[in-house]
Protein backbone atom coordinates (compact mmCIF):
# COMPACT_ATOMS: atom_id res chain seq x y z
CA UNK A 1 0.00 0.00 0.00
CA UNK A 2 1.31 3.41 -0.88
CA UNK A 3 0.19 6.65 0.60
CA UNK A 4 0.55 8.30 -2.79
CA UNK A 5 -2.42 6.40 -4.13
CA UNK A 6 -4.57 7.96 -1.48
CA UNK A 7 -3.52 11.59 -1.66
CA UNK A 8 -4.92 12.34 -5.10
CA UNK A 9 -7.16 15.34 -4.63
CA UNK A 10 -10.60 15.17 -6.18
CA UNK A 11 -10.85 18.39 -8.16
CA UNK A 12 -14.61 18.53 -7.85
CA UNK A 13 -14.48 18.57 -4.08
CA UNK A 14 -11.36 20.55 -3.34
CA UNK A 15 -10.46 22.78 -6.25
CA UNK A 16 -13.55 24.92 -6.25
CA UNK A 17 -13.00 27.20 -3.25
CA UNK A 18 -9.81 28.85 -2.11
CA UNK A 19 -8.59 27.66 1.28
CA UNK A 20 -9.12 30.11 4.17
CA UNK A 21 -6.33 28.61 6.18
CA UNK A 22 -3.42 26.82 4.65
CA UNK A 23 -0.35 25.22 6.16
CA UNK A 24 2.67 24.61 3.96
CA UNK A 25 5.41 22.41 5.33
CA UNK A 26 4.85 23.61 8.88
CA UNK A 27 7.12 22.33 11.63
CA UNK A 28 7.32 22.88 15.38
CA UNK A 29 10.03 22.18 17.93
CA UNK A 30 9.58 22.06 21.68
CA UNK A 31 13.21 22.45 22.66
CA UNK A 32 14.71 19.30 21.20
CA UNK A 33 11.40 17.54 20.75
CA UNK A 34 10.21 17.69 17.16
CA UNK A 35 6.46 17.81 17.64
CA UNK A 36 5.56 18.53 14.00
CA UNK A 37 7.34 18.28 10.66
CA UNK A 38 6.33 19.12 7.10
CA UNK A 39 2.63 19.51 7.68
CA UNK A 40 0.45 20.53 4.73
CA UNK A 41 -3.15 21.27 5.48
CA UNK A 42 -5.92 23.12 3.65
CA UNK A 43 -9.04 24.37 5.35
CA UNK A 44 -11.72 25.38 2.84
CA UNK A 45 -15.03 27.06 3.50
CA UNK A 46 -17.85 24.55 3.74
CA UNK A 47 -15.54 21.62 4.37
CA UNK A 48 -14.68 19.53 7.37
CA UNK A 49 -11.04 18.57 7.67
CA UNK A 50 -10.53 15.76 10.12
CA UNK A 51 -7.18 15.35 11.83
CA UNK A 52 -6.59 11.94 13.34
CA UNK A 53 -3.67 10.34 15.09
CA UNK A 54 -2.40 8.54 18.16
CA UNK A 55 -1.77 10.15 21.52
CA UNK A 56 1.19 12.46 21.22
CA UNK A 57 1.03 12.52 17.42
CA UNK A 58 0.98 16.31 17.46
CA UNK A 59 -2.69 17.05 16.84
CA UNK A 60 -3.06 19.56 19.67
CA UNK A 61 0.23 21.21 18.75
CA UNK A 62 -1.05 21.63 15.19
CA UNK A 63 -4.24 23.40 16.23
CA UNK A 64 -2.42 25.52 18.81
CA UNK A 65 -0.37 26.93 15.94
CA UNK A 66 -3.46 27.65 13.88
CA UNK A 67 -5.23 29.27 16.84
CA UNK A 68 -2.29 31.54 17.74
CA UNK A 69 -1.34 29.91 21.06
CA UNK A 70 2.01 28.70 19.71
CA UNK A 71 4.10 29.86 16.76
CA UNK A 72 5.43 27.57 14.03
CA UNK A 73 9.21 27.23 13.60
CA UNK A 74 9.25 26.09 9.98
CA UNK A 75 7.12 26.45 6.88
CA UNK A 76 4.29 28.84 6.19
CA UNK A 77 0.95 29.54 7.77
CA UNK A 78 -1.28 31.27 5.23
CA UNK A 79 -4.63 32.95 5.86
CA UNK A 80 -6.57 34.21 2.81
CA UNK A 81 -3.47 33.78 0.68
CA UNK A 82 -1.25 35.88 2.95
CA UNK A 83 1.45 34.38 5.16
CA UNK A 84 0.79 35.22 8.82
CA UNK A 85 2.41 34.74 12.18
CA UNK A 86 -0.15 34.88 14.98
CA UNK A 87 1.15 36.00 18.34
CA UNK A 88 -1.89 35.36 20.46
CA UNK A 89 -5.35 33.81 20.27
CA UNK A 90 -6.91 37.27 20.03
CA UNK A 91 -5.36 37.73 16.57
CA UNK A 92 -6.78 34.41 15.46
CA UNK A 93 -10.23 35.32 16.79
CA UNK A 94 -10.07 38.60 14.92
CA UNK A 95 -9.43 36.61 11.73
CA UNK A 96 -12.56 34.61 12.52
CA UNK A 97 -10.77 31.50 13.79
CA UNK A 98 -12.25 30.10 17.01
CA UNK A 99 -11.06 27.05 18.89
CA UNK A 100 -12.26 24.57 21.45
CA UNK A 101 -9.14 23.37 23.21
CA UNK A 102 -8.81 19.88 24.58
CA UNK A 103 -7.24 21.01 27.84
CA UNK A 104 -7.88 24.76 28.07
CA UNK A 105 -11.58 25.08 27.80
CA UNK A 106 -12.90 27.10 30.73
CA UNK A 107 -12.21 28.96 34.00
CA UNK A 108 -13.77 26.65 36.64
CA UNK A 109 -14.65 29.22 39.32
CA UNK A 110 -16.41 31.61 36.96
CA UNK A 111 -20.14 31.47 36.21
CA UNK A 112 -21.29 29.75 33.04
CA UNK A 113 -22.36 32.94 31.24
CA UNK A 114 -19.11 34.73 32.08
CA UNK A 115 -17.17 31.80 30.69
CA UNK A 116 -19.26 31.85 27.53
CA UNK A 117 -18.37 35.46 26.77
CA UNK A 118 -14.91 35.54 28.31
CA UNK A 119 -12.56 37.59 26.14
CA UNK A 120 -15.43 38.77 23.92
CA UNK A 121 -17.69 40.43 26.48
CA UNK A 122 -20.66 42.49 25.36
CA UNK A 123 -20.79 45.97 26.84
CA UNK A 124 -23.06 48.98 26.81
CA UNK A 125 -22.82 52.63 27.79
CA UNK A 126 -20.20 55.28 26.99
CA UNK A 127 -16.62 54.96 28.21
CA UNK A 128 -16.22 55.88 31.86
CA UNK A 129 -19.34 53.93 32.68
CA UNK A 130 -19.07 51.29 29.99
CA UNK A 131 -20.29 48.15 31.65
CA UNK A 132 -21.13 44.53 30.92
CA UNK A 133 -24.43 43.93 29.20
CA UNK A 134 -25.30 41.13 31.57
CA UNK A 135 -28.91 40.69 30.41
CA UNK A 136 -27.94 40.20 26.79
CA UNK A 137 -25.03 37.90 27.60
CA UNK A 138 -27.17 35.67 29.79
CA UNK A 139 -29.94 35.52 27.20
CA UNK A 140 -27.54 34.64 24.41
CA UNK A 141 -25.83 32.01 26.54
CA UNK A 142 -29.17 30.43 27.38
CA UNK A 143 -30.27 30.42 23.71
CA UNK A 144 -27.01 29.01 22.41
CA UNK A 145 -26.88 26.31 25.06
CA UNK A 146 -30.45 25.17 24.48
CA UNK A 147 -29.76 25.01 20.76
CA UNK A 148 -27.04 22.57 21.75
CA UNK A 149 -29.43 20.53 23.85
CA UNK A 150 -28.03 21.68 27.19
CA UNK A 151 -30.44 23.07 29.73
CA UNK A 152 -28.98 24.69 32.81
CA UNK A 153 -31.18 26.05 35.56
CA UNK A 154 -28.68 28.53 36.74
CA UNK A 155 -26.21 30.30 34.52
CA UNK A 156 -24.63 31.83 37.65
CA UNK A 157 -23.26 28.50 38.82
CA UNK A 158 -19.49 28.14 38.53
CA UNK A 159 -18.74 26.17 35.37
CA UNK A 160 -16.51 23.89 37.43
CA UNK A 161 -19.63 22.39 39.02
CA UNK A 162 -20.89 21.13 35.64
CA UNK A 163 -20.09 17.65 34.38
CA UNK A 164 -17.12 17.29 32.03
CA UNK A 165 -19.43 16.78 29.08
CA UNK A 166 -21.57 19.80 29.90
CA UNK A 167 -18.45 21.91 30.27
CA UNK A 168 -17.20 20.74 26.90
CA UNK A 169 -20.58 21.51 25.35
CA UNK A 170 -20.45 25.08 26.68
CA UNK A 171 -16.98 25.49 25.18
CA UNK A 172 -18.21 24.16 21.84
CA UNK A 173 -21.31 26.35 21.84
CA UNK A 174 -19.04 29.30 22.53
CA UNK A 175 -16.66 28.50 19.66
CA UNK A 176 -19.55 27.88 17.26
CA UNK A 177 -20.98 31.24 18.26
CA UNK A 178 -17.73 33.18 17.86
CA UNK A 179 -16.07 31.19 15.06
CA UNK A 180 -17.00 33.40 12.16
CA UNK A 181 -15.06 31.55 9.47
CA UNK A 182 -13.02 28.70 10.87
CA UNK A 183 -14.00 26.46 13.73
CA UNK A 184 -11.39 24.23 15.36
CA UNK A 185 -12.45 21.42 17.68
CA UNK A 186 -9.80 19.43 19.57
CA UNK A 187 -11.31 16.07 20.51
CA UNK A 188 -14.70 17.60 21.29
CA UNK A 189 -16.43 14.25 21.61
CA UNK A 190 -13.87 12.62 23.91
CA UNK A 191 -15.73 13.48 27.12
CA UNK A 192 -19.23 13.16 25.71
CA UNK A 193 -21.89 10.48 25.80
CA UNK A 194 -23.50 9.08 22.68
CA UNK A 195 -26.31 11.62 22.55
CA UNK A 196 -24.08 14.67 23.16
CA UNK A 197 -21.55 13.34 20.62
CA UNK A 198 -24.40 13.16 18.12
CA UNK A 199 -25.29 16.77 18.87
CA UNK A 200 -21.68 17.84 18.32
CA UNK A 201 -21.52 15.98 14.99
CA UNK A 202 -24.75 17.67 13.91
CA UNK A 203 -23.23 20.98 14.90
CA UNK A 204 -20.20 20.29 12.77
CA UNK A 205 -22.43 19.42 9.83
CA UNK A 206 -24.47 22.59 10.40
CA UNK A 207 -21.32 24.70 10.54
CA UNK A 208 -20.25 23.21 7.21
CA UNK A 209 -23.65 24.01 5.70
CA UNK A 210 -23.19 27.62 6.72
CA UNK A 211 -19.91 27.70 4.84
CA UNK A 212 -17.49 27.54 7.77
CA UNK A 213 -14.24 25.71 7.49
CA UNK A 214 -14.04 23.13 10.27
CA UNK A 215 -11.01 21.34 11.67
CA UNK A 216 -12.21 18.35 13.64
CA UNK A 217 -9.68 16.47 15.71
CA UNK A 218 -10.67 13.08 16.99
CA UNK A 219 -9.50 9.61 17.93
CA UNK A 220 -12.67 8.12 16.59
CA UNK A 221 -12.57 7.26 12.85
CA UNK A 222 -16.30 6.54 12.87
CA UNK A 223 -17.08 10.04 14.06
CA UNK A 224 -14.60 11.46 11.56
CA UNK A 225 -16.06 9.52 8.67
CA UNK A 226 -19.60 10.63 9.47
CA UNK A 227 -18.83 14.32 8.87
CA UNK A 228 -15.40 14.58 7.24
CA UNK A 229 -14.62 15.81 3.72
CA UNK A 230 -10.91 15.43 4.06
CA UNK A 231 -8.78 13.29 6.34
CA UNK A 232 -5.28 13.87 7.62
CA UNK A 233 -3.67 11.24 9.79
CA UNK A 234 -0.68 12.29 11.87
CA UNK A 235 1.96 9.92 13.09
CA UNK A 236 4.87 11.08 15.22
CA UNK A 237 4.45 14.64 14.03
CA UNK A 238 4.33 13.89 10.30
CA UNK A 239 1.44 13.40 7.90
CA UNK A 240 0.91 9.73 7.25
CA UNK A 241 -2.27 10.14 5.24
CA UNK A 242 -3.75 13.18 3.55
CA UNK A 243 -6.79 12.17 1.54
CA UNK A 244 -10.17 13.34 0.36
CA UNK A 245 -13.23 11.42 1.39
CA UNK A 246 -13.65 9.82 -2.07
CA UNK A 247 -10.20 8.32 -1.87
CA UNK A 248 -10.42 6.57 1.44
CA UNK A 249 -12.84 4.12 2.99
CA UNK A 250 -13.74 3.87 6.64
CA UNK A 251 -11.79 0.61 6.92
CA UNK A 252 -8.69 2.18 5.49
CA UNK A 253 -9.04 5.12 7.78
CA UNK A 254 -9.48 2.93 10.83
CA UNK A 255 -6.53 0.95 9.74
CA UNK A 256 -4.34 4.01 9.32
CA UNK A 257 -5.42 5.26 12.70
CA UNK A 258 -4.53 2.07 14.42
CA UNK A 259 -1.34 1.68 12.41
CA UNK A 260 -2.19 -1.35 10.23
CA UNK A 261 0.90 -3.48 10.66
CA UNK A 262 1.11 -2.77 14.36
CA UNK A 263 -2.45 -3.92 14.79
CA UNK A 264 -1.69 -7.15 12.96
CA UNK A 265 1.29 -7.74 15.24
CA UNK A 266 -0.84 -6.99 18.27
CA UNK A 267 -3.43 -9.48 17.12
CA UNK A 268 -0.74 -12.07 16.69
CA UNK A 269 0.56 -11.43 20.22
CA UNK A 270 -2.90 -11.54 21.70
CA UNK A 271 -3.49 -14.89 20.02
CA UNK A 272 -0.83 -16.35 22.29
CA UNK A 273 -2.47 -15.03 25.41
CA UNK A 274 -4.96 -17.47 26.80
CA UNK A 275 -8.56 -16.27 26.93
CA UNK A 276 -8.50 -13.80 24.08
CA UNK A 277 -10.62 -14.94 21.17
CA UNK A 278 -8.82 -13.52 18.16
CA UNK A 279 -11.63 -14.48 15.80
CA UNK A 280 -13.83 -11.94 17.57
CA UNK A 281 -11.43 -9.09 16.85
CA UNK A 282 -12.10 -6.94 13.77
CA UNK A 283 -10.35 -7.84 10.53
CA UNK A 284 -7.14 -6.01 9.86
CA UNK A 285 -7.23 -4.36 6.44
CA UNK A 286 -3.77 -3.90 5.06
CA UNK A 287 -4.39 -2.34 1.70
CA UNK A 288 -7.31 -0.94 -0.23
CA UNK A 289 -7.35 -3.95 -2.56
CA UNK A 290 -7.97 -6.59 0.11
Amino acid at each position, binding site marked *: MTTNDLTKPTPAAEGTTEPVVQLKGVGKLYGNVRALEGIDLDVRPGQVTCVLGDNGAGKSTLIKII*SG*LHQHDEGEYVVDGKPVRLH*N*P*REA*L*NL*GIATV*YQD*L*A*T*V*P*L*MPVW*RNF*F*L*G*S*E*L*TRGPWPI*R*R*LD*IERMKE*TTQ*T*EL*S*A*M*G*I*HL*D*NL*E*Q*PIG*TLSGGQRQSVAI*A*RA*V*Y*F*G*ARVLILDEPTAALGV*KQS*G*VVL*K*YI*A*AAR*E*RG*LGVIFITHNPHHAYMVGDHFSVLRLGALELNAARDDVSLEELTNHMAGGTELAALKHELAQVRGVDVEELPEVVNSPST
Partner: protein
Amino acid sequence: MTQAAPPAAATPPASPAAAPKSRTAERSLARRALARPEIGALVAAVGVYIFFFAVAPTFRQADSFATVLYQGSTLGIMALAVSLLMIGGEFDLSAGVAVTSSALAASMLSFQLTANVWVGVGVALVISLSVGLINGLLLIKTGLPSFLVSLASFLMLQGLNLAITKLLTDNVATNAINDMDGFESAKAVFASEVTVFGVDVNITVFYWLAFAGLATWVLLRTKFGNWIFAAGGSKESARAVGVPVNLTKIALFMTVGFAAWFVGMHLLFEYNTVQAGEGVGNEFYYIIAAVIGGCLLTGGYGSAIGALLGAFIFGMVNQGIVYANWNPDWFKFFVGVMLLLATLVNLWVRRQAARR
Protein backbone atom coordinates in the same frame (compact mmCIF):
# COMPACT_ATOMS: atom_id res chain seq x y z
CA MET B 1 -16.48 43.18 18.86
CA THR B 2 -15.44 41.92 15.48
CA GLN B 3 -18.35 39.69 14.68
CA ALA B 4 -21.70 41.30 15.08
CA ALA B 5 -24.10 38.69 13.76
CA PRO B 6 -24.44 35.62 15.91
CA PRO B 7 -23.75 32.96 13.32
CA ALA B 8 -24.91 29.95 15.25
CA ALA B 9 -28.31 31.32 16.05
CA ALA B 10 -29.19 31.30 12.38
CA THR B 11 -29.24 27.57 11.82
CA PRO B 12 -29.22 25.62 15.04
CA PRO B 13 -29.19 21.89 14.44
CA ALA B 14 -32.45 20.32 15.46
CA SER B 15 -32.23 19.84 19.17
CA PRO B 16 -33.28 16.40 20.29
CA ALA B 17 -33.80 17.55 23.83
CA ALA B 18 -37.22 17.69 25.35
CA ALA B 19 -38.57 20.82 26.98
CA PRO B 20 -36.16 22.15 29.59
CA LYS B 21 -36.94 20.46 32.85
CA SER B 22 -35.68 21.99 36.05
CA ARG B 23 -33.82 19.51 38.16
CA THR B 24 -33.13 21.80 41.06
CA ALA B 25 -35.73 23.96 42.70
CA GLU B 26 -35.19 27.72 42.60
CA ARG B 27 -32.14 28.20 44.72
CA SER B 28 -33.13 29.65 48.02
CA LEU B 29 -32.04 33.13 48.96
CA ALA B 30 -29.92 31.68 51.76
CA ARG B 31 -28.13 29.37 49.37
CA ARG B 32 -27.44 32.24 47.01
CA ALA B 33 -26.15 34.41 49.87
CA LEU B 34 -23.86 31.55 50.91
CA ALA B 35 -22.37 31.57 47.44
CA ARG B 36 -21.00 35.08 47.95
CA PRO B 37 -17.29 35.18 48.88
CA GLU B 38 -17.76 37.80 51.61
CA ILE B 39 -20.40 36.00 53.65
CA GLY B 40 -17.85 34.51 56.07
CA ALA B 41 -16.35 37.95 56.70
CA LEU B 42 -19.79 39.43 57.31
CA VAL B 43 -20.57 36.83 59.96
CA ALA B 44 -17.16 37.38 61.54
CA ALA B 45 -17.57 41.18 61.52
CA VAL B 46 -20.92 40.97 63.28
CA GLY B 47 -19.47 38.49 65.78
CA VAL B 48 -16.42 40.65 66.58
CA TYR B 49 -18.62 43.75 66.85
CA ILE B 50 -20.98 42.09 69.33
CA PHE B 51 -18.04 40.74 71.30
CA PHE B 52 -16.34 44.10 71.84
CA PHE B 53 -19.67 45.83 72.26
CA ALA B 54 -20.27 43.51 75.20
CA VAL B 55 -16.84 43.60 76.86
CA ALA B 56 -15.70 47.21 76.25
CA PRO B 57 -18.11 50.03 77.19
CA THR B 58 -15.94 52.65 75.41
CA PHE B 59 -16.33 50.69 72.19
CA ARG B 60 -20.04 51.62 72.14
CA GLN B 61 -19.39 55.37 71.78
CA ALA B 62 -19.77 57.00 68.39
CA ASP B 63 -16.30 58.58 68.33
CA SER B 64 -14.73 55.23 69.19
CA PHE B 65 -16.51 53.79 66.22
CA ALA B 66 -15.08 56.61 64.09
CA THR B 67 -11.60 55.62 65.28
CA VAL B 68 -12.30 51.99 64.42
CA LEU B 69 -13.36 53.05 60.94
CA TYR B 70 -10.25 55.18 60.57
CA GLN B 71 -8.03 52.25 61.55
CA GLY B 72 -9.91 50.12 59.06
CA SER B 73 -9.58 52.68 56.28
CA THR B 74 -5.79 53.10 56.22
CA LEU B 75 -5.38 49.34 56.11
CA GLY B 76 -8.49 48.87 54.00
CA ILE B 77 -7.57 51.05 51.03
CA MET B 78 -4.47 48.93 50.56
CA ALA B 79 -6.36 45.70 51.27
CA LEU B 80 -8.78 46.55 48.46
CA ALA B 81 -6.00 46.86 45.89
CA VAL B 82 -4.26 43.78 47.27
CA SER B 83 -7.49 41.77 47.10
CA LEU B 84 -7.96 42.69 43.43
CA LEU B 85 -4.40 41.57 42.80
CA MET B 86 -5.00 38.32 44.67
CA ILE B 87 -8.19 37.63 42.70
CA GLY B 88 -5.97 38.16 39.66
CA GLY B 89 -3.75 35.39 41.01
CA GLU B 90 -0.75 37.33 42.32
CA PHE B 91 0.82 38.58 45.56
CA ASP B 92 2.63 41.79 46.32
CA LEU B 93 4.92 41.54 49.33
CA SER B 94 6.31 45.00 48.62
CA ALA B 95 2.93 46.64 49.29
CA GLY B 96 3.73 47.51 52.91
CA VAL B 97 7.00 49.35 52.33
CA ALA B 98 5.69 50.83 49.07
CA VAL B 99 3.40 53.05 51.17
CA THR B 100 6.41 54.40 53.06
CA SER B 101 8.41 54.81 49.85
CA SER B 102 5.70 56.98 48.38
CA ALA B 103 5.40 59.17 51.47
CA LEU B 104 9.20 59.52 51.71
CA ALA B 105 9.50 60.44 48.06
CA ALA B 106 6.85 63.15 48.26
CA SER B 107 8.22 64.56 51.50
CA MET B 108 11.92 64.63 50.64
CA LEU B 109 11.39 65.84 47.11
CA SER B 110 9.30 68.80 48.24
CA PHE B 111 11.69 69.57 51.08
CA GLN B 112 14.92 69.32 49.09
CA LEU B 113 13.59 71.42 46.22
CA THR B 114 11.65 73.73 48.58
CA ALA B 115 8.87 73.29 46.10
CA ASN B 116 5.14 73.27 46.53
CA VAL B 117 4.23 69.96 48.21
CA TRP B 118 1.94 69.14 45.30
CA VAL B 119 5.05 68.69 43.16
CA GLY B 120 6.19 66.00 45.57
CA VAL B 121 2.73 64.47 45.59
CA GLY B 122 2.73 64.28 41.79
CA VAL B 123 6.21 62.81 41.52
CA ALA B 124 5.39 60.28 44.25
CA LEU B 125 2.40 59.13 42.20
CA VAL B 126 4.63 58.56 39.17
CA ILE B 127 7.13 56.65 41.34
CA SER B 128 4.44 54.47 42.94
CA LEU B 129 2.86 53.59 39.62
CA SER B 130 6.32 52.81 38.24
CA VAL B 131 7.04 50.45 41.14
CA GLY B 132 3.80 48.63 40.28
CA LEU B 133 4.71 48.58 36.60
CA ILE B 134 8.17 47.19 37.34
CA ASN B 135 6.73 44.50 39.62
CA GLY B 136 4.31 43.49 36.87
CA LEU B 137 6.92 43.51 34.13
CA LEU B 138 9.36 41.51 36.26
CA LEU B 139 6.65 38.93 36.90
CA ILE B 140 5.83 38.58 33.22
CA LYS B 141 9.35 38.74 31.81
CA THR B 142 10.94 36.36 34.31
CA GLY B 143 8.01 34.01 34.70
CA LEU B 144 8.93 33.71 38.39
CA PRO B 145 6.14 33.49 40.98
CA SER B 146 5.00 36.91 42.20
CA PHE B 147 5.83 35.82 45.75
CA LEU B 148 9.52 35.83 44.81
CA VAL B 149 9.51 38.85 42.53
CA SER B 150 7.73 41.05 45.07
CA LEU B 151 9.88 39.70 47.91
CA ALA B 152 12.87 41.00 45.98
CA SER B 153 11.26 44.39 45.40
CA PHE B 154 10.22 44.50 49.06
CA LEU B 155 13.86 44.17 50.11
CA MET B 156 15.05 46.65 47.53
CA LEU B 157 12.46 49.27 48.46
CA GLN B 158 13.15 48.77 52.16
CA GLY B 159 16.86 49.31 51.52
CA LEU B 160 16.23 52.38 49.38
CA ASN B 161 13.84 53.85 51.96
CA LEU B 162 16.49 53.73 54.68
CA ALA B 163 19.57 54.51 52.59
CA ILE B 164 18.19 57.51 50.71
CA THR B 165 16.51 58.97 53.77
CA LYS B 166 19.76 58.80 55.76
CA LEU B 167 21.68 60.21 52.84
CA LEU B 168 19.42 63.23 52.50
CA THR B 169 18.42 63.95 56.10
CA ASP B 170 21.20 62.28 58.16
CA ASN B 171 18.31 60.82 60.08
CA VAL B 172 15.81 57.97 59.78
CA ALA B 173 12.87 60.37 59.61
CA THR B 174 12.06 63.15 57.16
CA ASN B 175 11.89 66.83 58.06
CA ALA B 176 8.47 68.21 58.90
CA ILE B 177 6.83 69.85 55.90
CA ASN B 178 3.82 71.47 57.56
CA ASP B 179 5.00 75.03 56.85
CA MET B 180 5.53 74.48 53.14
CA ASP B 181 3.43 75.78 50.24
CA GLY B 182 0.44 73.66 49.41
CA PHE B 183 0.52 71.73 52.68
CA GLU B 184 -2.88 72.94 53.82
CA SER B 185 -4.65 72.09 50.58
CA ALA B 186 -2.95 68.69 50.41
CA LYS B 187 -3.92 68.01 54.01
CA ALA B 188 -7.50 68.94 53.18
CA VAL B 189 -7.53 66.39 50.39
CA PHE B 190 -5.67 63.53 52.07
CA ALA B 191 -5.99 63.93 55.83
CA SER B 192 -8.83 66.20 56.90
CA GLU B 193 -11.64 65.49 59.31
CA VAL B 194 -15.29 65.55 58.30
CA THR B 195 -17.97 66.08 60.94
CA VAL B 196 -20.89 63.70 60.61
CA PHE B 197 -23.70 64.02 63.20
CA GLY B 198 -21.29 65.73 65.59
CA VAL B 199 -18.60 63.04 65.23
CA ASP B 200 -15.25 63.80 63.57
CA VAL B 201 -14.53 61.18 60.94
CA ASN B 202 -11.28 61.09 58.99
CA ILE B 203 -11.74 61.67 55.28
CA THR B 204 -9.91 58.40 54.50
CA VAL B 205 -13.00 56.55 55.73
CA PHE B 206 -15.04 58.05 52.90
CA TYR B 207 -12.33 57.34 50.33
CA TRP B 208 -12.21 53.79 51.61
CA LEU B 209 -15.94 53.27 51.13
CA ALA B 210 -15.87 54.97 47.72
CA PHE B 211 -12.94 52.86 46.53
CA ALA B 212 -14.69 49.72 47.76
CA GLY B 213 -17.76 50.66 45.74
CA LEU B 214 -15.64 51.38 42.68
CA ALA B 215 -13.67 48.13 43.03
CA THR B 216 -16.90 46.13 43.37
CA TRP B 217 -18.33 47.76 40.28
CA VAL B 218 -15.19 47.10 38.28
CA LEU B 219 -14.99 43.48 39.43
CA LEU B 220 -18.58 42.53 38.77
CA ARG B 221 -19.76 44.88 36.07
CA THR B 222 -16.89 45.52 33.68
CA LYS B 223 -14.82 43.67 31.11
CA PHE B 224 -11.70 44.30 33.13
CA GLY B 225 -13.31 42.69 36.19
CA ASN B 226 -14.07 39.61 34.13
CA TRP B 227 -10.46 39.49 33.03
CA ILE B 228 -9.23 39.75 36.64
CA PHE B 229 -11.22 36.68 37.67
CA ALA B 230 -10.12 34.82 34.57
CA ALA B 231 -6.44 35.74 34.89
CA GLY B 232 -6.45 34.42 38.46
CA GLY B 233 -8.77 31.47 37.89
CA SER B 234 -7.01 29.94 34.92
CA LYS B 235 -4.36 32.00 33.23
CA GLU B 236 -3.91 29.70 30.24
CA SER B 237 -7.60 29.27 29.53
CA ALA B 238 -8.08 33.01 29.74
CA ARG B 239 -5.27 33.64 27.29
CA ALA B 240 -6.64 30.99 24.95
CA VAL B 241 -9.95 32.82 24.56
CA GLY B 242 -8.24 36.14 23.95
CA VAL B 243 -8.02 37.77 27.40
CA PRO B 244 -4.95 40.07 27.64
CA VAL B 245 -3.68 38.36 30.77
CA ASN B 246 -0.34 40.16 30.99
CA LEU B 247 -1.93 43.57 30.63
CA THR B 248 -4.46 42.70 33.34
CA LYS B 249 -1.75 41.66 35.78
CA ILE B 250 0.35 44.74 35.15
CA ALA B 251 -2.71 46.95 35.66
CA LEU B 252 -3.37 45.19 38.98
CA PHE B 253 0.17 45.76 40.24
CA MET B 254 -0.18 49.40 39.25
CA THR B 255 -3.45 49.59 41.16
CA VAL B 256 -1.56 48.46 44.25
CA GLY B 257 0.96 51.18 43.44
CA PHE B 258 -1.81 53.76 43.26
CA ALA B 259 -3.27 52.65 46.60
CA ALA B 260 0.21 52.78 48.20
CA TRP B 261 0.58 56.35 46.95
CA PHE B 262 -2.82 57.31 48.31
CA VAL B 263 -2.22 55.87 51.77
CA GLY B 264 1.33 57.22 51.74
CA MET B 265 0.01 60.75 51.09
CA HIS B 266 -2.46 60.36 53.92
CA LEU B 267 0.25 59.35 56.38
CA LEU B 268 2.50 62.18 55.24
CA PHE B 269 -0.10 64.92 55.65
CA GLU B 270 -1.52 63.43 58.82
CA TYR B 271 1.85 63.26 60.62
CA ASN B 272 4.03 65.82 58.68
CA THR B 273 7.00 63.53 58.92
CA VAL B 274 7.73 59.95 57.84
CA GLN B 275 9.80 57.26 59.55
CA ALA B 276 11.92 55.50 56.92
CA GLY B 277 11.62 52.07 58.54
CA GLU B 278 7.83 52.00 58.66
CA GLY B 279 5.50 49.75 56.74
CA VAL B 280 7.38 46.47 57.08
CA GLY B 281 4.95 43.66 57.91
CA ASN B 282 1.86 45.53 56.80
CA GLU B 283 1.85 43.63 53.52
CA PHE B 284 0.78 40.57 55.48
CA TYR B 285 -2.07 42.44 57.13
CA TYR B 286 -3.34 43.46 53.70
CA ILE B 287 -3.20 39.88 52.51
CA ILE B 288 -4.84 38.65 55.73
CA ALA B 289 -7.66 41.20 55.40
CA ALA B 290 -8.23 40.01 51.83
CA VAL B 291 -8.21 36.36 52.89
CA ILE B 292 -10.59 36.98 55.79
CA GLY B 293 -12.75 38.71 53.20
CA GLY B 294 -12.95 35.52 51.17
CA CYS B 295 -10.10 35.82 48.66
CA LEU B 296 -8.59 32.49 47.67
CA LEU B 297 -4.80 32.32 47.98
CA THR B 298 -4.79 30.49 44.69
CA GLY B 299 -6.59 33.33 42.90
CA GLY B 300 -9.72 33.59 40.82
CA TYR B 301 -12.10 34.11 43.71
CA GLY B 302 -12.86 36.87 46.18
CA SER B 303 -14.55 40.23 46.57
CA ALA B 304 -13.83 43.86 47.33
CA ILE B 305 -16.65 44.03 49.88
CA GLY B 306 -14.97 41.08 51.61
CA ALA B 307 -11.68 42.98 51.78
CA LEU B 308 -13.58 45.97 53.19
CA LEU B 309 -15.07 43.77 55.91
CA GLY B 310 -11.69 42.16 56.55
CA ALA B 311 -10.08 45.53 57.16
CA PHE B 312 -13.05 46.61 59.30
CA ILE B 313 -12.53 43.54 61.49
CA PHE B 314 -8.88 44.53 61.84
CA GLY B 315 -9.90 48.02 62.93
CA MET B 316 -12.33 46.63 65.50
CA VAL B 317 -9.87 44.18 66.99
CA ASN B 318 -7.08 46.75 67.03
CA GLN B 319 -9.12 49.40 68.85
CA GLY B 320 -11.37 46.99 70.77
CA ILE B 321 -8.36 45.61 72.63
CA VAL B 322 -7.40 49.13 73.67
CA TYR B 323 -10.94 50.02 74.75
CA ALA B 324 -11.21 46.79 76.71
CA ASN B 325 -8.02 47.81 78.55
CA TRP B 326 -6.16 44.73 77.49
CA ASN B 327 -2.49 44.54 76.72
CA PRO B 328 -2.11 45.45 72.99
CA ASP B 329 0.23 42.48 72.68
CA TRP B 330 -2.90 40.38 72.40
CA PHE B 331 -3.63 41.96 69.02
CA LYS B 332 -1.50 39.58 66.99
CA PHE B 333 -2.90 36.57 68.82
CA PHE B 334 -6.40 37.73 67.92
CA VAL B 335 -5.45 38.27 64.30
CA GLY B 336 -4.06 34.75 64.14
CA VAL B 337 -7.26 33.28 65.56
CA MET B 338 -9.38 35.39 63.19
CA LEU B 339 -7.37 34.30 60.19
CA LEU B 340 -7.70 30.65 61.06
CA LEU B 341 -11.43 30.88 61.76
CA ALA B 342 -12.17 32.95 58.68
CA THR B 343 -10.30 30.59 56.39
CA LEU B 344 -12.14 27.60 57.83
CA VAL B 345 -15.51 29.36 57.52
CA ASN B 346 -14.73 30.35 53.94
CA LEU B 347 -13.75 26.80 53.11
CA TRP B 348 -16.96 25.47 54.60
CA VAL B 349 -19.08 28.10 52.88
CA ARG B 350 -17.58 27.30 49.51
CA ARG B 351 -18.27 23.61 49.96
CA GLN B 352 -21.89 24.41 50.78
CA ALA B 353 -22.20 26.69 47.79
CA ALA B 354 -20.66 24.20 45.42
CA ARG B 355 -23.19 21.58 46.48
CA ARG B 356 -26.12 21.70 44.13
